[in-house]
């Protein structure tokens, strides 16, 4: 705040700026954000960064340890797997695949979930409460179980597992949106718009939706971490991405075979998943507490 102010004017920062300021105060969350940006860059620029083709098999160099081990080489920084594929390249491609697909899935699920949730939240009466309660109790079924059932119907494979996870994520978004819309509809500003003659459509798009952005971003980050976990879990269970595809979960699954002699085969892809989820969770937490302290301070 400037010490000397000639005019009695002040420019209070916008809510978004305040949120960013609060977010910046939380150093751990900022580190998480940098990590997240790193993964985004990795996902976008992956093919340019990876030293080898992830599927290329170097027959003469099987199971080379990573370069920090005494017997490791500099050619394959993260070592190679049982078929002589370069693990660094596979991890980079794996991040690209797991991360990129998860973002796609979350966006899709968000779109569907918000649309259905808005309808559920805006509607009244016996039918809506019927559907809502049913949805609530079905929500209790864990996403992974839903995904497994859907895969049992559709068959295994990456695309099918994508559908399965999208469908499994949708109920959460419906639930959140519905609750949010329910709460907002009761508030005065919506009532004021309603009294001005706004239709339900206008109410939702002009009054409620603009206020929902932050909630959606926060929920989206958490859904993203769930999506990454689930997609790699399905890959790991050999229900999702199939063998040669460089997907982190599938790589872990293949790594088990050589786990004892080449532990880096499971340590490195797992660490990549772990780092991804940690950074997403840190950013999500940071956002949440920034929003909370914004409300607290104003």
């Amino acid at each position, binding site marked *: *705040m400037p010490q000397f102010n000639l005019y*009695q004017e*002040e420019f209070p920062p916008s809510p978004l700026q*305040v949120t960013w*300021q609060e977010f910046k105060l939380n150093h751990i969350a900022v580190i998480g954000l940098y990590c997240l940006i790193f993964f985004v860059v990795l996902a976008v620029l992956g093919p340019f960064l990876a030293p080898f083709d992830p599927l290329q098999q170097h027959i003469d160099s099987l199971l080379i340890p990573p370069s920090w081990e005494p017997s490791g080489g500099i050619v394959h920084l993260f070592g190679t797997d049982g078929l002589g594929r370069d693990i660094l390249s596979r991890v980079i491609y794996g991040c690209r695949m797991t991360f990129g697909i998860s973002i796609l899935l979350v966006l899709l699920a968000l779109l569907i979930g918000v649309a259905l949730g808005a309808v559920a939240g805006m509607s009244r009466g016996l039918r809506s409460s019927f559907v809502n309660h049913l949805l609530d109790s079905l929500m209790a079924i864990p996403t992974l179980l839903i995904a497994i059932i859907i895969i049992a119907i559709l068959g295994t494979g990456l695309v099918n597992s994508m559908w399965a996870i999208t469908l499994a994520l949708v109920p959460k978004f419906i639930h959140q949106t519905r609750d949010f819309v329910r709460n907002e509809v009761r508030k005065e500003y919506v009532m004021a718009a309603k009294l001005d003659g706004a239709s339900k459509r206008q109410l939702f798009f002009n009054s409620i939706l603009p206020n929902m952005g932050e909630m959606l971003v926060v929920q989206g980050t958490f859904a993203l971490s769930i999506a990454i976990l689930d997609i790699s879990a399905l890959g790991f269970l050999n229900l999702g991405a199939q063998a040669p595809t460089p997907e982190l979960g599938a790589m872990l699954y293949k790594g088990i075979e050589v786990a004892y002699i080449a532990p880096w085969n499971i340590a490195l892809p797992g660490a990549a998943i772990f780092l991804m989820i940690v950074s997403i969770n840190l950013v999500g937490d940071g956002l949440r507490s920034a929003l909370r302290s914004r409300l607290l*301070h104003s």
Partner: protein
Amino acid sequence: MSLLDIKNLTLEIDVRGGWIKALDKVNLVVNEGQIHALVGESGSGKSIIVKAIVGAIPDRWRITADRMTWRGQDLLTMSVSERRKIIRSDIAVVFQNPMGSLDPTATLGDQLIEIIPSKRIDVPWYKSGKKLRMKIAADLLHRVGIKDHEQCMNSYVHQIANDVCQKYMIAMALASEPKLIIADDPTRGMEITAKTQILKLLSRVNQVREVAVLFVSHDLLAISSMAHNMTVLYCGQTVESGRMSQLRKRALHPYTKALLDSAPSFRKDLPAKSPLASLGGTIPTLQNVPIGCRLGPRCPRARKECVKNPEPRRIHEHYYSCHFPLHWDKE
């Protein structure tokens, strides 16, 4: 003898971009057996003073005072547990929001019994004294005008009405037989009959049991008839304090005058259909309070000197902080 004596209490709170003086050199003296009114607009820092007295402010806020004593003992330097002990035995607080200041998961009876100090339970050591506690509790409830004590004690906060809840709070305040009851705007948001009951109850408590009451409110009308002394607060600064009758008759500070004038019933000479007097402008936000006398920009009598903080001056028991007090030019 004064019970509570506060001199130059300053409280700084941290907001985004720096420290702000929420209270700026506040003086307050409460004498034994008297009703003292603390009056100010909302946002003038009344509730913060109450919190500062009972020590319920966050650790990170800076609090300084030249003097803040309870019957000669310094409240600021003593340890938290000592202070709690004093508050437990001598001071009781009735809060602004009775519903919010009671535990929603415990019955009202449990909370009242918890507050009864064990010195009042005079039973042999092998008895728990539960019966006696129940009796004291019922007695307290009768005293504040709750007839059906059993039902009340068995219910939870959300099951009883707001004004009953406030009476209950007063009963809880009386439980420890305090020397001072701090009533922090106890009648907020109540309709007029409930309000009158609460006010009568407090002034009866004061008369019968010789308990001092620090009555915090913005409602001059309600307290002018019952209070002995009054302190007026504006924006975290004490503006004027003194005997109620004196203040009403001859207010020295422009703000006190404006406050009194704003209530039509205080003005007998008000002609029909004439506009009500009020100060221009609004109370400034804490982020940008004016320097010097904080009333400055709104004061009809402000002059150049008002950018300096006025020292409190005194005529007998009447304190005021103004460079150019009313009635002064004539004398």
